[in-house]
């Protein structure tokens, strides 16, 4: 499974020559040329938009990174300053909670919903897949949720006070709960639900029929058939979820601007703040730190989740 998506796949062409025995003598030179022709665009793309910025960022994080004028090498001063900054630690804490809670809530629940939905009549399944696929404008749904959470006239406040009879709550201005309320919409709108449903649809009916004949219960069928068959797609979406949720920015920024008191300020949001202050060296250093943290998480994940034998 590739962590960074658009890496070119050289093994495919190089595996070819073995098969082409009869005319092998004339082929190799042409082959090599063709291989490079196919691979080069991807390598160039990956170099200029992937590896080059990364290398420059690592370099810049060790300098004062001025907009113009002399670039001065400052060693690990930027990092030292960031480590001493309590707001950096806080933003990492927020990010971990945001990502952890987010994956916990938005990852498992759609799996369950997808499995239960597949038991519904086929027409409902199609409607649900369509709904999950409807392209929602990020900004529009953010504004929608801002309205939902409004403390004076929002729908959720109405439900809490008028329907459930609870005391009014602060929602996004409560430091303890703000992250939960930011994640909550994701439970309802998380994308992989569609992947789950398609992968569930690809399981032949006979698997369930075989289990039914043997007397397996609904949950046992899910445990022994549905989940094992979904495992590759779950494992892939999880790694994207980890990478994505560690870089959360747009939604919390629009909803809360990091407040109250930085209780929802993620690392990328803080990085943005530092950039706005013109501290480019610090900002790149922070981005390199975040990169390192995500890299470690991905490596740990790869170590824990061994490759599927039947992927």
């Amino acid at each position, binding site marked *: 499974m590739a962590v960074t998506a658009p890496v070119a796949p050289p093994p495919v062409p190089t595996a070819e020559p073995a098969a082409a025995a009869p005319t092998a003598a004339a082929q190799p030179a042409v082959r090599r040329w063709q291989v490079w022709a196919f691979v080069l665009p991807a390598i160039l793309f990956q170099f200029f938009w992937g590896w080059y910025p990364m290398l420059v960022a690592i370099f810049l994080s060790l300098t004062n990174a001025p907009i113009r004028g002399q670039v001065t090498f400052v060693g690990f001063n930027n990092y030292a300053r960031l480590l001493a900054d309590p707001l950096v630690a806080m933003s990492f804490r927020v990010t971990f909670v945001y990502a952890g809670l987010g994956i916990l809530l938005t990852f498992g629940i759609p799996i369950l919903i997808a499995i239960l939905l597949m038991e519904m009549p086929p027409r409902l399944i199609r409607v649900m897949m369509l709904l999950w696929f409807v392209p929602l404008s990020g900004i529009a749904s953010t504004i929608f949720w801002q309205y939902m959470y409004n403390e004076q006239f929002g729908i959720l406040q109405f439900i809490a006070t008028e329907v459930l009879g609870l005391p009014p709550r602060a929602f996004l201005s409560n430091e303890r709960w703000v992250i939960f309320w930011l994640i909550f919409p994701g439970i309802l709108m998380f994308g992989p639900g569609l992947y789950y449903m398609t992968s569930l649809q690809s399981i032949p009916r*006979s698997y369930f*029929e075989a289990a039914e004949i*043997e007397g397996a219960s609904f949950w*046992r069928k899910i445990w*022994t058939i549905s989940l094992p*068959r979904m495992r590759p797609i779950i494992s892939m979406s999880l790694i994207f979820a980890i990478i994505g949720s560690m870089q959360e920015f747009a939604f919390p920024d629009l909803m809360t601007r990091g407040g109250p008191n930085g209780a929802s300020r993620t690392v990328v949001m803080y990085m943005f703040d530092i950039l706005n202050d013109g501290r480019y060296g610090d900002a790149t250093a922070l981005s390199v730190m975040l990169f390192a943290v995500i890299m470690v998480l991905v490596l740990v994940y790869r170590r824990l989740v061994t490759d599927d034998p039947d992927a």
Partner: protein
Amino acid sequence: MAGVTLDHVSKRYHTLTADGRPVTGLDDVSLHIADGEAVSVVGPSGCGKSTLLKVIAGLEMPDAGRVLFNDVDVTRWPAQARGVGMVFQDYALYPAREGEDNLSYYFEVRKRTEEEKVRRVREVATLMGIGFDLLLERQVDTLSGGEKQRVGIARCIVRDPNVFLMDEPISNLDAKLRERTRIEIKRLIKAFGITTVYVTHDQQEAVFMGDRIAVMRAGRIEQFGAFDDLYFSPANLFVATLIGTPPMSVLPAVRRAETLELAGASLPLPPDLAAELPAGPLRLGVRPEGWLLDPPGAALTLPIRHVERIYTERAAYAAGDLAGSPVHVLVPLDLPAQAALRIAPDWERSFFFAAEGEAALRVPGPPDLF
């Protein structure tokens, strides 16, 4: 073990197939399978043969009619209560499990003792023959198609089913493996004497597997009988052309008095046969072995398109067209090269059908061997 009876079973689906036709169900199907009998169900795809199997298994509930196991009405029983074993075309082995786990699944689900589970799995492994216990140790996803189906069959017999249901078990295998697995299944069916329903679209397989064969079309059983019945006394044109390879040639003909006018020739009919057939247009059916080569008297001229050898016999088929219909004629291998054959139908082995519809007017019936 159990005999299986379907009593006026109907099943209608309300879903449509991809091309907008309703999914074939069952249309008033009645069938009695004796205890220990092996029955093949054969028919073109979409004829409802899989539905028939699922109704017996309890995976589908019929809209009308009854399903009986040994005179016990099991129509409303769920699948797991019926004690059937089913083998699927796509094997349907539980993923990401070892072969052995697939066999013991039933015992886990039923919360049987560990000791019973181990004992049964070992018994079945012995029955399945050489090398089978090696398959049990492997992840099912690493097994080949043939190996998977062996595990699938073992999973089916490990719990002593009343009825063995097989849904095209070998059609996903390659030709050589298909042959071997077919014999293997036959051996197991015979060894256990379990009532078996074997669904296939391949008539050769149906003949090999079944003591009797049910021919299905569009949710109905067209004919149910031993192979010789289907072959020599087909109930209608559909069964006649489905059974037999290459298929029976069907030619439009007209009976006038004592002659049959056929493809521009006029053939004299034996008097008793002429008396039996209605005057006017009808259709003549002749199987490849039902043609007389170079007959004395009136004959048809068949231009030879090609000759194909039958690899299992020292003979060949000459193929050509008569009156726009394909005709196959069984010929000896040493047939001299020639552009056309003189042939005439052997009246003893000829089939007659109505000109319209599919009704059989006269069929030769199984040959009297004794």
